């Protein structure tokens, strides 16, 4: 086992965040030797997650996900707009992440912007893969009209592993998404759009193949999924993978100051695929379970 204290001692104490990171290295228990982590989890175990969809009534689709202490609210608003010039027969996804200062005081002012853009860039990357979401269905008139999905992600509480939780919440919100049906009538070269105002005359988005992010953090000689805040502070390098239903990797990004050996990247890819498939399956199961329960369940929202 690598002594964490040793690593800490060679790294200069740079700023406050770095200092905190060095602090946490003191508790060597957060290392994941013997497949036993600080809270008794194995290396490939997620903390329990709760989700609810349809929590915000004035959105087209919304969800709230709690992963232990991480709390994320996602709202999707569908609006009509013009398609991007290079993909003129497709709709668009626009991600926006907001880090609430309620989550941690560090997010106050512009403090959360860096993290927010990191999360939204990662989401753009993993969703920028043909087949994730059928964007052609979101197009109404090629080159002229399409649905743009504004996906707003609000970070309410930080408890580690924000990327994975955000991606799960986005997928759940997309599942909940209901876009009004649009009928196009052509009248002497004059195009008219009629948007249905019947709440049941809606189209939905198929999320079966959309990806979830799985973050693998390298701690000591092991890599763990779903790192808690303490574990994140101990980890020097992490690999984030967008994994779709059957284990297709739709995006990948390496983060952190540490370096990774090619062979360990291979291992991490294997683990990521395996965990990603399980995550997608479990997520879809609970989303369908919630859909079956339907309206009679009643909304819990933010009341516990």
């Amino acid at each position, binding site marked *: 086992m690598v002594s964490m*204290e040793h690593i*800490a001692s060679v790294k200069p104490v740079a700023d406050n965040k770095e200092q905190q990171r060095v602090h946490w290295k*003191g508790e060597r*228990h*957060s290392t994941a030797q013997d497949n036993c982590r600080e809270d*008794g989890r194995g290396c490939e175990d997620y903390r329990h997650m709760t989700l609810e969809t349809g929590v915000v009534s004035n959105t087209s689709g919304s969800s709230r996900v709690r992963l232990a202490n991480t709390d994320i609210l996602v709202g999707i608003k569908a609006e009509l707009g013009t398609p991007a010039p290079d993909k003129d027969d497709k709709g668009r996804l626009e991600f926006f992440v907001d880090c609430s200062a309620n989550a941690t005081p560090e997010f106050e002012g512009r403090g959360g912007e860096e993290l927010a853009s990191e999360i939204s860039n990662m989401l753009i990357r993993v969703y920028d893969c043909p087949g994730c979401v059928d964007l052609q269905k979101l197009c109404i008139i090629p080159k002229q009209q399409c649905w743009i999905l504004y996906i707003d992600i609000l970070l309410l509480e930080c408890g580690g592993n924000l990327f994975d939780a955000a991606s799960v919440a986005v997928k759940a919100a997309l599942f909940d998404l209901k876009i009004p049906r649009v009928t196009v009538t052509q009248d002497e070269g004059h195009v008219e759009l009629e948007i249905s105002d019947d709440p049941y005359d809606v189209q939905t988005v198929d999320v079966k193949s959309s990806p979830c992010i799985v973050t693998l953090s390298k701690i000591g000689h092991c890599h763990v999924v779903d790192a808690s805040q303490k574990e994140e502070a101990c980890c020097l390098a992490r690999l984030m993978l967008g994994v779709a239903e059957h284990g297709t990797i739709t995006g990948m990004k390496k983060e952190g100051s540490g370096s990774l050996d090619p062979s360990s990247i291979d291992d991490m890819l294997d683990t990521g695929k395996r*965990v990603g498939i399980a995550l997608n399956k479990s997520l879809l199961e*609970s989303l369908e379970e919630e859909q079956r329960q339907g309206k009679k369940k009643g909304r*819990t929202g933010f009341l516990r």
Partner: protein
Amino acid sequence: MVDIRVVGARDRQKQELTEEISNLVCPGDVITTDTGFMRGHGTYMEDEKLHASVAGVVERVNKLICVKPLKTRYNGEVGDVVIGRIIEVGQKRWKVDTRSKLDSILMLSSVNLPGGELRRRSEEDEKMMRNYLKEGDLISAEVQSVFSDGALSLHTRSLKYGKLAQGTIIQVSPSLIKRRKTHFHTLPCGATIILGNNGSVWISATMNEETEQTGGYEQDLEPVSKGDREVIARLRNCVIALSEHQMMLYDTSVLYSYEESLRFNVKDILKPEIMTEIIENTQPRLESLGT
């Protein structure tokens, strides 16, 4: 591997466990309209009436009315056992973060130097301070005195206090730590737990006698065995479960919840329904002990 659930689907109806506290007030509540009382902490005067400025329990000492807040930062008292982290090495003193309102101070003159010898602190010792305790180290200490502004002065002049080596730390609300004669417990399950009055709980594997008596300056950095780590993880999850359910933390409650949790896997303890079950089983045992 992955456990995702729908909100409200598997939740059981939460039992009403706590009895009603009679003198509970919310901020802005009128405590009394009688002007004969004196205004204490957590209260303010408006229109000749005494209002509460915090949510908490009203306490009266003769003519003085205070509101003791339910949720608060740690307010130190002399004799408290605390767990803190060194944040700065200064002139003849260390600054310690004890999760109180102000940073606490540990004077060079109030520590036991390695080897346990008691002598005057020389200039050499002052230069060596960072070798004893450096930024980021965790210590257990006792509150020696409280300054007028509420800042704490700590001391580690007993061999049970000092630097902490390998273990895990949990932060809970300081109001959940029950004041006992001793806050150091060696539990029969093979772990040592320190319940700091400041809401920091430290759990580590039980050391043998010799290393315990050095004030922690000689650290044992050998990897902890898997069995010990599991015991520590289980205890940690039990402490979190107790604090989630607002149960007082002391040796018996921790031990009972540990025993109740043995039926489950360590990692499952933090799942809400299992957590509730463990606590529901622990509670009657504690109550039968109390009567």
